[in-house]
């Protein structure tokens, strides 16, 4: 270290002297501080800060040293310099201002804060410290600013005040602080971790705790004393022996204290108590003796994505907008459009353990044009597929799929909307032989109509229809919310316009009445939405939001169709998300499969409570790191889920995944 010119026994202990790039203003009641770390005990004598000011009015500068707590200035001054009147000229570029303390300050190892202030100044902005935008190697400590004369501090993120601390190392012990603080544990918890066992304690005051633990049960020795000839209960001695000491995980002093044990086997009882320090000094308090028997093994929480089980390419040429449906037993069907926009349906076997294959059967149900197909079960082995057919008309077909996966010929075909630009049809069963199709129709308006399909697959004429949005109704996703009451989530007003949900009534005879209620849940929606039932009257809507990011919204929809404002939101992908597909996992947990950044396929799990509050993300996994677009996810069995999606090279892919669920 370099010697200070003015004294042979002092040297530069620490500081930041290079990288002068920016001003950090301060003044009257606005103070600044720079934290610095000492590796061992030092006597400090002089500090210097590079600063400037733009007023010729005389004023007084003062430096102070303070304790820190979690890297932030804390409490009152530990030492202060005298008020030094600055020079009466304007110094815009800044100069090094050094001041001496009236006596040597014994600074122990750890982090300290150098506070800079001009309490007699008239304005809070006429002074500034010069600051660097990077820390030199080996130097730590953040810069802080207080706008209330040092009561509370806010970090100056990304900048560090130029400063110097001069002094000399010492081996003298650090004197204890005058005020000794006690603490008490107010609460404690314990839980297994995947490879360890964790104990957490909450105290009323900040402290740094050490756990003393043993396997030997403590003994109690009640003691009596004789007073005036009478035996009086006096005290109790506790024998706590053969203990090992473990330090808390959190650095510095804290309110929460975590202890993690990697060697605590199941069915072992340990006894422990805590002692503590505050600002590195021992405190007189101690905790009671805890007794803890470890019962539990670690169990992955619901929503944990365990592994990718199997994958199968069901169309090696091209497949987009696939929809995966369960047929019977281990037989599933995928309807999709191929590279020529033809409509296809394939059946495939998915075992309960997630093993995929073989492919069972395939049928090109529309060799001319079969875009965006959506299938629903009619009865026994009869299925109906609604899609965008030739000329962009809305078409519905029926066909049979046997329980063994054999696909029969098309039974019947009917054009349900003979006008171009029918897109995104969703066909659902209403009652008896009545079915409804929600779709985007001419002018990109939102439509819903009803028609009948009998058990033999004969498709009747349209019974009723309703235009649920005259402006725009893109990508409608319907869900049954009450007896004959349906909610439709869709994109309204423009391509990246508002996300809206509307409710309507569809009677058993196919008569449509609406709207009952409507609600805008997102000002900007950049993806087709996926609405799903969470719990009670709470529903979730996963979609794309501003900048194409992934957003999840919750709201309530009563069984009469009344819609509440949004309850909670969560940005499940801050980069990019499209085409979400959601399945429930049980225990208020849900999985969202979607096309994420760089067209990769992503899967995230999250919890939603009974009130609609969205909890923290449970887990995430990339189900296809190359391409995973337009996923359609389904529960197979137990913890096994399947996703059909448009994968690498736009080929059709199936993937099974193990997710911890309670289904």
């Amino acid at each position: 270290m370099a010697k200070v010119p003015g004294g042979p026994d002092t040297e530069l202990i620490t500081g930041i002297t290079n990288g002068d790039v920016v001003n950090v203003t301060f003044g009257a009641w606005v103070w600044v501080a720079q934290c610095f770390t000492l590796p061992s005990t030092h006597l400090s004598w002089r500090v210097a800060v590079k600063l400037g000011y733009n007023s010729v009015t005389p004023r007084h500068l003062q430096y102070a040293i303070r304790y820190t707590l979690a890297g932030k200035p804390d409490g009152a001054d530990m030492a202060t310099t005298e008020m030094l009147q600055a020079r009466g000229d304007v110094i815009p570029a800044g100069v090094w201002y050094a001041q001496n303390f009236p006596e040597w300050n014994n600074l122990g190892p750890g982090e300290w804060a150098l506070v800079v202030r001009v309490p007699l100044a008239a304005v809070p902005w006429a002074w500034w410290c010069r600051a660097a935008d990077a820390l030199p190697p080996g130097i730590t400590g953040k810069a802080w600013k207080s706008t209330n004369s040092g009561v509370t501090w806010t970090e100056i993120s990304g900048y560090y005040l130029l400063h110097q601390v001069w002094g000399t190392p010492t081996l003298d012990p650090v004197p204890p602080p005058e005020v000794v603080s006690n603490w008490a544990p107010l609460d404690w918890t314990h839980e297994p971790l995947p490879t360890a066992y964790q104990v957490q304690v909450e105290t009323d005051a900040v402290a740094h705790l050490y756990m003393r633990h043993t396997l030997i049960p403590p003994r109690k020795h009640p003691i009596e004393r004789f007073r005036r000839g009478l035996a009086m209960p006096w005290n109790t001695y506790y024998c706590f022996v053969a203990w090992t000491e473990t330090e808390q995980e959190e650095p510095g002093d804290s309110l929460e204290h975590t202890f993690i044990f990697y060697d605590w086997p199941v069915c072992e009882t340990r006894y422990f108590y805590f002692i503590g320090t505050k600002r590195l000094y021992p405190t007189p308090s101690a905790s009671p003796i805890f007794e803890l028997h470890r019962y539990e093994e670690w169990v992955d929480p619901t929503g944990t994505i365990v592994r990718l089980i199997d994958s199968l390419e069901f169309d090696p040429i091209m497949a987009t907008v696939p929809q995966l449906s369960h047929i019977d037993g281990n037989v599933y069907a995928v309807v999709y459009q191929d590279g020529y926009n033809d409509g296809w349906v394939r059946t495939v076997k998915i075992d309960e353990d997630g093993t995929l294959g073989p492919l069972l059967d395939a049928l090109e149900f529309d060799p001319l044009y079969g875009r965006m197909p959506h299938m629903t079960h009619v009865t026994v082995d009869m299925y109906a597929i609604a899609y965008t057919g030739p000329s962009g008309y809305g078409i519905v077909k029926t066909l049979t799929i046997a329980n063994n996966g054999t696909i029969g010929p098309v039974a019947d075909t009917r054009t349900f909307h003979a006008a171009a630009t029918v897109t995104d049809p969703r066909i659902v069963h209403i009652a008896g032989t009545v079915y409804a199709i929600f779709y985007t129709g001419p002018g990109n308006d939102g439509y819903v109509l009803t028609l009948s399909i009998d058990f033999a697959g004969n498709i009747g004429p349209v019974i009723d229809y309703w235009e649920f949005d005259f402006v725009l109704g893109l990508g409608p996703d319907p869900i049954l919310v009450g007896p004959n009451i349906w909610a439709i989530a869709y994109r309204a007003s423009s391509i990246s316009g508002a996300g809206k949900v509307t409710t309507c009534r569809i009677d058993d005879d196919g008569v449509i009445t609406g709207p009952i209620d409507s609600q805008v849940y997102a000002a900007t929606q950049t993806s087709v939405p996926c609405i799903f039932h969470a719990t009670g009257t709470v529903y979730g809507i996963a979609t794309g939001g501003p900048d194409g990011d992934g957003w999840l919204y919750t709201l309530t929809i009563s069984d009469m169709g009344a819609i509440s404002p949004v309850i909670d939101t969560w940005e499940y992908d801050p980069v990019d998300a499209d085409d979400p597909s959601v399945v429930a996992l049980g225990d208020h947990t849900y999985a969202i499969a979607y096309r994420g950044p760089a067209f990769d396929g992503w899967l995230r799990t999250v919890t939603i409570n009974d009130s609609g509050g969205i909890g923290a993300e449970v887990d995430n996994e990339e189900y296809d790191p190359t391409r995973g677009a337009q996923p359609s996810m389904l529960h197979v069995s137990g913890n096994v889920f399947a996703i059909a999606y448009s994968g690498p090279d736009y080929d059709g892919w199936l993937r099974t995944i193990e997710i911890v669920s309670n289904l």
Partner: protein
Amino acid sequence: MAKLTRLPSLAIIDGYKGVLDFYLCMGVPCVRKWPSSPGKNRSAAVQAQWPVFATAARLYSQLTPAMWQVYFDMAKDTNLTARDVFTKSYIKGMLTWYVPPEGFPENGP
């Protein structure tokens, strides 16, 4: 305090109730001024402990049931209450100062 050759009769002792305190110390009859609380007239060292006691009293009511159970279990089968254990732990700890006396029975009295 003064030593007496013998204790007065019970009627005399009762007559001085609140004024004089008669008692036996190691079999020696004694009399002293009736004990009374000094109130707030305490030494600076004692007064310095008041905030700690006040804080301990306040914190005891803030314990969660799980934490209270730990104090209760520690006080079980002893001559202390859970509040005693809490207060002693908070003020100076229950274990850190203790050195078993020589010849102390291992299984307790």
